[in-house]
């Protein structure tokens, strides 16, 4: 396999061709946050949190889906990158319900964790919030789309890992929504007890029915900065 020489954050690195920027960074213990990317899934490219600066590129590029190239010079945590990530997380929080105190997954919520790392405070943007009724008819899964950030991991995970097609994306633009069938509440008929999508959901949008406090067993949220 051809070796590619590149620079990330002033470190000269070498990696196999075909790898993405994010994979190379990870291999070298450089942490790039991402809300839609997961190693087990094909890149989705939707959340844009993993964007990085590549010298001579006009825009930032999504590190999860951009393959490395010979001589690339990459900055994963430049001021420009951090500012954009911060704005985007703030945008996500602006339309998110933000009921972290009431959320079972608050302690293991990736959105909250990244927001904390980037020191995003209360969103300054005023935008309508997406409110949907909680779907708890299924014995296996509880869906609260009010907390969904449209990362599409659940769609991909169901598709690629379980080879099922329970979820789809419907509507357009700001109204986009992860739907089941004709935008119906998820129930016992369409979904079995596999939990795959739940483990991929970065927020509290997908969870299990559980005892109070059960979901909080994740690693406690470390507030840095």
């Amino acid at each position, binding site marked *: 396999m051809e070796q590619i020489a590149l620079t990330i954050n002033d470190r000269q690195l070498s990696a196999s061709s075909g790898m993405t920027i994010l994979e190379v960074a990870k291999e070298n213990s450089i942490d790039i946050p991402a809300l839609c990317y997961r190693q087990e899934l094909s890149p989705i490219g939707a959340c844009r949190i993993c964007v990085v600066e590549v010298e001579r590129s006009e825009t930032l590029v999504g590190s999860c889906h951009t393959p490395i190239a010979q001589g690339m010079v990459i900055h994963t945590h430049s001021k420009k990158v951090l500012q954009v990530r911060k704005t985007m997380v703030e945008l996500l929080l602006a339309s998110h319900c933000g009921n972290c105190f009431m959320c079972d997954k608050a302690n293991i919520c990736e959105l909250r964790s990244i927001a904390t790392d980037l020191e995003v405070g209360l969103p300054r943007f005023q935008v309508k919030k997406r409110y949907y009724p909680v779907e708890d008819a299924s014995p296996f899964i509880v869906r609260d789309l009010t907390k969904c950030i449209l990362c599409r991991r659940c769609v991909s995970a169901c598709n690629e890992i379980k080879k099922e*097609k329970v979820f789809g994306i419907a509507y357009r633009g700001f109204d986009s929504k992860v*739907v089941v069938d004709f935008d119906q509440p998820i129930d016992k008929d369409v979904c079995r007890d596999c939990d795959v999508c739940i483990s991929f959901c970065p927020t509290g949008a997908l969870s299990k029915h559980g005892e109070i406090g059960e979901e909080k067993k994740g690693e406690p949220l470390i507030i840095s900065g």
Partner: protein
Amino acid sequence: MNKINGEIYMQNKEQKELLVRLGEAQNKFGYLSEKVMIELAESLDMSISDVYGVATFYSFFSIRPQGRNIIRICKSVPCFLKNSQVIIETVEKEIGIKPGETTPNGKFSFHLTNCIGVCDKAPAMMINSEVYIDLTPNKISQILKAHK
């Protein structure tokens, strides 16, 4: 190893007929019923949610019954500069409904739409697939009368 060049292209080529078939159903029945979407999902080997996702993405598809004639008035900037607002109000008055609604007799549905590509002859609207240009309030009632 990443899957950038892999799985995303392993796909169902039958699906290319979906837009065409949804369009045919839309024309035939005036909207896309659940029955139609289930049939399409089965014959094209797709999930219902994927068919529904496509049906709700495009603005010329409708998942609710529409009137026999669909009026689409352009609300984009070039038409706005030529007083499309007056045309919108005239249509509202003539058929007694607001954008997004259907007349009780099922004759008209009325929507506002984005640029329809006749900006040199603004204001403009479409009824079904027919385009009407250089509109004035006086022209509206005549045009509407021609539709049954």
